[in-house]
């Protein structure tokens, strides 16, 4: 307990940084649920493809172990754009291949759920077997660097060293902590604005509220679904970049645990609620760190899930309640 109080700020700030990444991934779950009442279990793979895009961009530019700050920033901006494009693309592909055919036929939600789980495995294994896939296509020679160690961890070739910026309590807040938290908040803010203010955002909320009325009012629901998946993918791409800055290593199944955590964060905050995803992610990240400090690191997941159960007991719809359609706009 003494340890917890002595290192309260350090535990809280690193928890917030971790929670920011959960929150960004949670957005993808929450938006798709809000609009389609469907849990997109393949979203963790959307995130994982983003992390690999970051690594590949670094490979592509031949980044070494040490990069000047300027070139590192350039690389990170480039890799974030690529990660957003790739994650957004994978999300759109998911919508097209795994969902739209089912939604068109009005199949039960459960079928779409199974389709999502299947898509998740297919995407993860495609990444884990990328060397074989390249082999089939005869590209192994040209892509060696990108497909090597397909089932192993791949790390950024460049070491990103966090520099201390300023002190809160006795903890030196680093550039990486600040970057991750600020970037996540900015993205959240932008997305929130988009959903609340833009024409397409209004369409999303309309479909979430009542798909058939929205269609009667001239909202193109297919378009809305696409935008929903795309936005979730873009956020996952940003999350992937921040994750690689913080952790720096990924592998073909890296999405799984993070996906579970992000989904938990979404439920914690109230699934279907954008601001809820933010709150849920941050609360979960901090709770994990506090739990680790008070009870023990091996209990951190137990703490997180007990917290989830307790919150759902008192607020069955999550901290901020379920609402995308019923948005106060």
């Amino acid at each position: 307990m003494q340890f917890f109080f002595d290192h309260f700020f350090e535990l809280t700030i690193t928890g917030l940084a971790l929670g920011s990444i959960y929150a960004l991934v949670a957005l993808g779950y929450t938006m798709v649920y809000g609009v389609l009442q469907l849990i997109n279990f393949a979203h963790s793979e959307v995130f994982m493809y983003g992390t690999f895009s970051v690594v590949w961009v670094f490979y592509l530019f031949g980044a070494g172990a040490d990069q000047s700050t300027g070139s590192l920033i350039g690389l990170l901006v480039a890799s974030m754009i690529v990660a957003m494009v790739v994650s957004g693309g994978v999300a759109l592909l998911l919508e097209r291949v795994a969902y739209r055919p089912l939604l068109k036929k009005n199949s039960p939600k459960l079928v779409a759920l199974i389709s999502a789980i299947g898509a998740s495995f297919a995407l993860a294994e495609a990444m884990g077997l990328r060397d074989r896939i390249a082999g089939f296509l005869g590209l192994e020679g040209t892509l060696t660097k990108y497909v090597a160690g397909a089932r192993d961890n791949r790390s950024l070739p460049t070491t990103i060293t966090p520099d201390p910026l300023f002190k809160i309590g006795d903890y030196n807040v680093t550039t990486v902590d600040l970057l991750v938290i600020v970037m996540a908040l900015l993205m959240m803010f932008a997305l929130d604005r988009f959903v609340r203010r833009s024409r397409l955002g209004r369409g999303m909320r309309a479909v979430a509220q009542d798909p058939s009325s929205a269609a009667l009012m001239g909202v193109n629901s297919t378009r809305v679904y696409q935008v929903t998946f795309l936005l979730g993918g873009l956020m996952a791409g940003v999350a992937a970049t921040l994750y690689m800055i913080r952790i720096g290593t990924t592998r073909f199944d890296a999405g799984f645990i993070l996906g579970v955590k992000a989904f938990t964060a979404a439920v914690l905050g109230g699934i279907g609620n954008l601001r809820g995803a933010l709150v849920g992610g941050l609360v979960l990240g901090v709770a994990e760190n506090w739990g680790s400090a008070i009870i023990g690191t091996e209990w951190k997941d137990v703490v997180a899930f007990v917290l989830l159960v307790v919150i759902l007991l008192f607020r069955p719809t999550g901290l901020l309640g379920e609402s995308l359609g019923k948005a106060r706009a």
Partner: protein
Amino acid sequence: MFRSTTSRRAIVALFAATAGLGLSSCGSDDKDTASSGSDTSSSAECKPATIAFFGPKTGDAANLGLNIVGGVKVAVDKFNAEHPDCKVTTKDFDSQGDPEKATPLAAQVINDKSIIGVVGPTFSGESDATGPAFAEAGLVTVSSSATNPDLTTNGWKTFHRILGNDATQSPAAAKYIKDNLKSKKAFVVDDASEYGKGIADGVAKDLGDLVVGTDTVQVKQTDFGPTVTKIKASGADALWYGGYYAEAGLLAKQLRAAGWKGYFVSGDGSNDPGFVEAAGKAAAKDARLTCPCGAATPEFTADYEKANPGKKPGTYSAEGFDAATILLDGIGEGKSTRSDLLDYVNAYDKPGLTKQLKFDDKGEVAEVVIYAFKVDDAGEIVLDTEIK
């Protein structure tokens, strides 16, 4: 020297993939090191024979298996050059390191009557699953890497391993932290796996009062924030991590990023270029990795590169060579049945590449040597010292 780089690892992994394509359907692969018609003029003592490699050539753990396969190939090539009249063939059985896949594969090995000895199984899990079958068939196995202490307590007459088990590694690791690194305060972390917890508990017990704190993380965890805070707060000047390279690398990286300056020490589970890959060269630098595995000598490295073009020996390559050499010596002395070869291995007592090769009645190697490696400035894992 114990040289290994990430690019070598990439090549090995790529090779694993291409090899895997060829053998995924049948799970076994004949490596033609002998022409089949060479038995016409066999001498009275030595008859052509087949030995098997049993372990992963594809899958998550392929790197270790391929290191051993490479070592076996060096030994077989050498033997065949010296015995042109009785060439030995190797058959590789790819278990992917998975105990479930290993069981039916062991039956295949046992039913292949041409096989009189096995190098492997590579891992403890698959050794445990297949041990009874090999024992019943009387087929001698020499593992170059299975280190679970319990494996030799089952009364399998056929099981042998040529390196110290986990129970011998922890006292040596504790000694290294105390005597070589002169640690005053040590922190012990494990990953809750059977291997990691076992070895970390052993180290903590032997370090005794030096231990200022312990923590447990999880396999596949990537963010070690609270653990890093605990280690820093404890004022420890050395950390023992019991677990595997993926988490070890990330923990080392996050510790250095947080400004911790002590020694990062881990065991054979982390003794892999993957550790440096995950940590980055800067954070991995000067990390210490203990291992019951020996370092490759320059001559062995040269032989290895000749037998396996474009590849360098890695963890357990030298042990693979030694394991195969024991079997090959027996074949060279005219042992051509499974029972003869088993008796021969039980009585074996010759100097090998890594140590004096001799087994006790349970199949443990008589002489155990634990080495400490360190990560040098270039990110290579090089031999530091033998722990005495």
